[in-house]
């Protein structure tokens, strides 16, 4: 791989981690959805760049799917849901942005340490790519853990999945079928969650997950 190709993919993958952090920082739903769209754009750029450098045409398709679905359709759909639910002005109380960021930092450090240890024999690019991808996955999880609103949980889940795609694009020879199936399973998950949101809302008048906890009698 030429230095410039390496540098660019390094930059794009690192950018993805950065946008993940930006998502953790956002506490307004609309801004969060915009950031998520950016996340998908960066992802599709990273994947497209991989397609270009590896001359793997099927990756272009993956990039296109990411761009169309995740950067345009899903954020637009979620925005509509948010507006229809009437929570688009809602400010979500995140568990201390600073603390979440620190935790995220720890997760990034952890994933770098783990991945670089495990993949000691792999090429420089694969190591970097996997370390970044794991960071994105863990940050997505972190977001799901720290958010209360169901919409932001969906976004967290989607960004987690972006991390998986990044990992898949970096590892050569990942069959297209797997990716498509992953993409569609996510889509289905999205639809299911979307429907659920409305069901939850119909029943509890809110999409705050605390309501579900108290329904199960878990809330103190």
């Amino acid at each position, binding site marked *: 791989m030429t230095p410039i190709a390496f540098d660019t993919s390094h930059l794009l*993958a*690192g950018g993805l*981690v*950065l946008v993940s952090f930006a998502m953790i920082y956002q506490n307004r739903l609309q801004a969060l959805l915009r950031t998520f769209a950016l996340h998908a754009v960066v992802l599709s750029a990273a994947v497209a760049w991989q397609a270009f450098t590896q001359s793997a045409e099927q990756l272009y398709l993956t990039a296109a799917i990411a761009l169309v679905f995740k950067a345009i359709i899903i954020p637009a759909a979620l925005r509509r849901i948010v507006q229809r639910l009437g929570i688009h002005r809602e400010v979500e109380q995140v568990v201390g942005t600073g603390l979440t960021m620190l935790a995220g930092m720890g997760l*990034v450090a952890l994933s770098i340490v783990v991945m670089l240890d495990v993949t000691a024999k792999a090429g420089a690019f694969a190591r970097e790519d996997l370390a970044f991808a794991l960071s994105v996955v863990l940050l997505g999880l972190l977001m799901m853990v720290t958010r209360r609103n169901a919409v932001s949980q969906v976004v967290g889940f989607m960004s987690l999945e972006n991390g998986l795609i990044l990992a898949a694009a970096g590892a050569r020879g990942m069959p297209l079928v797997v990716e498509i199936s992953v993409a569609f399973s996510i889509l289905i998950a999205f639809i299911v969650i979307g429907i659920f949101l409305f069901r939850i809302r119909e029943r509890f008048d809110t999409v705050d997950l605390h309501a579900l906890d108290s329904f199960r009698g878990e809330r103190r």
Partner: protein
Amino acid sequence: MIAAFAIQGIQMLLVLALAPGLVGLVRKVKARAMRRRGASVLQPYRDLRRLMRKEVVLADTASWLFTATPFLVFAATWVAASLVPTFATGLQFSWTADLIAIVALLGSGRFFLALAGMDVGTSFGGLGASREVMFASMAEPAMLLTVFALSLVAGSTQLSTVVEVLHGPPGVGLRVSLGMALVALIIVAIVENGRIPADNPATHLELTMVHEAMVLEYSGRHLAMIELAGAMKLLLYVSLIACLFVPWGIARAGDGPGALVIGVATYLAKIAVGGVALALFEASIAKMRVFRVPDYLGIALMLGLLGTLLLFVSGTL
């Protein structure tokens, strides 16, 4: 030898001479962006001359620390500004202080300014001082983490060496850490210079003042010194960002006069672009609440740390 001293001298005079001009440029562009005509770019020079000629009105309760501070702050800022490579690296005294020491020199300036703010014993002085140290205690770690990231890439904290390594050849390529360092540095620069959105340099409204509240009691030549120091600090940060992230055109140690002329020309272009960008940025956003600023600086802090952590991903380090 004499040439080397002369170049160092030129750099010192250059930063001193250019600093008010940069402030004037920012004000002018900002005014134009807001559909005002704005004062001439040379207005800050005239302001300084006017202030110098005016008498000093000193509060009854002011002590010697109050009158000494403007000169100390001016000196510390000037020394720091002349140690940052502007048009050439490897100047005669560039080894006097490395990047960490430059940050600390600016810190001394702020330290004495905060003390002077409290010296007269007014409510505004204390208000400015308390907010300034709060900003500083977030901005300084962010700045130092950025310095860490940069000097881990370059293997040195010596600014001239860092610039030469980053400039190449062979250069260090595109690095996501450097991008993060750049953003962090810009955030720190905005806060440290009291620009919008952290502070507004053009207001004397009680609720929004930070820097201005500290220097409220100054007048005459003392105020001139502080204004000049403030302008040089702005120039310092613009030069720092320029020499680290757009080092093209900068002359190296031992280059001939031709390279130096190119260096000066590109430097002037760089700070002009920096000034215009700052003005447009300021014109397009609103000031934030004082207690939002720590969050804003928290981003810089996080980017600095993340940039340092991501350095270790690269196999090349």
